[in-house]
């Protein structure tokens, strides 16, 4: 069984985001409300507007400061393999839009930036999320 260990690199719109300490990818969709009384206890759940939210923490605040809300591009992260000879893992999120940027400057510990991205499918049946193994 393959396991992945740590973040090797993260890039957004072709630029490296540097010292990324954590990435949280949340894929979610709203549940479509029942149309009437007859649908209220329908056994099938229908989803509406699937979307992906990514929360990312980095210590490269200079890279974060250079970004602007609304910047868009592919968000890609590569994970280190947990054992020798195992391929790395790459997760790609197409069409990511920067919707939140929080910069925290501390007195005694390194400054941090928290970035939030929103990704929606370009069209019906299209999934902006993909993950695959990559050989070094």
């Amino acid at each position: 069984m393959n396991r992945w260990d740590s973040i090797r690199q993260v890039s957004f719109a072709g630029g490296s985001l540097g010292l990324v300490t954590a990435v949280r990818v949340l894929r979610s969709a709203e549940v479509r409300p029942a149309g009437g009384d007859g649908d209220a206890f329908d056994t099938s759940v229908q989803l509406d507007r699937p979307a992906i939210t990514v929360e990312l923490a980095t210590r490269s605040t200079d890279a974060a400061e250079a970004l602007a809300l609304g910047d868009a591009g592919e968000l890609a992260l590569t994970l280190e393999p947990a054992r020798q000879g195992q391929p790395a893992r790459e997760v790609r999120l197409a069409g990511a839009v920067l919707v939140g940027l929080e910069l925290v400057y501390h007195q005694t510990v390194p400054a941090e930036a928290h970035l939030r991205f929103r990704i929606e499918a370009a069209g019906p049946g299209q999934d902006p999320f993909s993950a695959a193994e990559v050989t070094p």
Partner: protein
Amino acid sequence: MTPTATDILDDVLTALRATGAFAWIGQAGPDQPPPALPAVRVGLLGHTTQPADDGASLWHELRLELALRTDAPRTAAALGKALELLGRARSALLADPFRGGRTCHLPIGRATELGPVVLGTQARPPLCELRFDLTCRYEEELE
């Protein structure tokens, strides 16, 4: 010890030998003085096994203790020499944390992990002894 654990121990000894910094490297008993200085004595602290999260393999944790001993005419010089050798030994051990592909990072810890350094109590001046633990983790599939 499992064959993999024996291989890991051999790899640790090989990594220490490759530094060329020690006159003696081995597994002598704790009460026997090393035949030449500077020396590193590698001892087995423990070997534990637990089921892996996939249910199809076992996680092993091999704990070794390394005691590095050197001497010099003055205590301060012996300590300085021991610290310099300690840095070389630790760098050599971390150069390949996967121990030639035998160990791996697991949810229970890193492939190779070095513990804190403590001053050995068995050596008296002008000898100086520094000790630290080395933990190696590996996974073996159940047959």
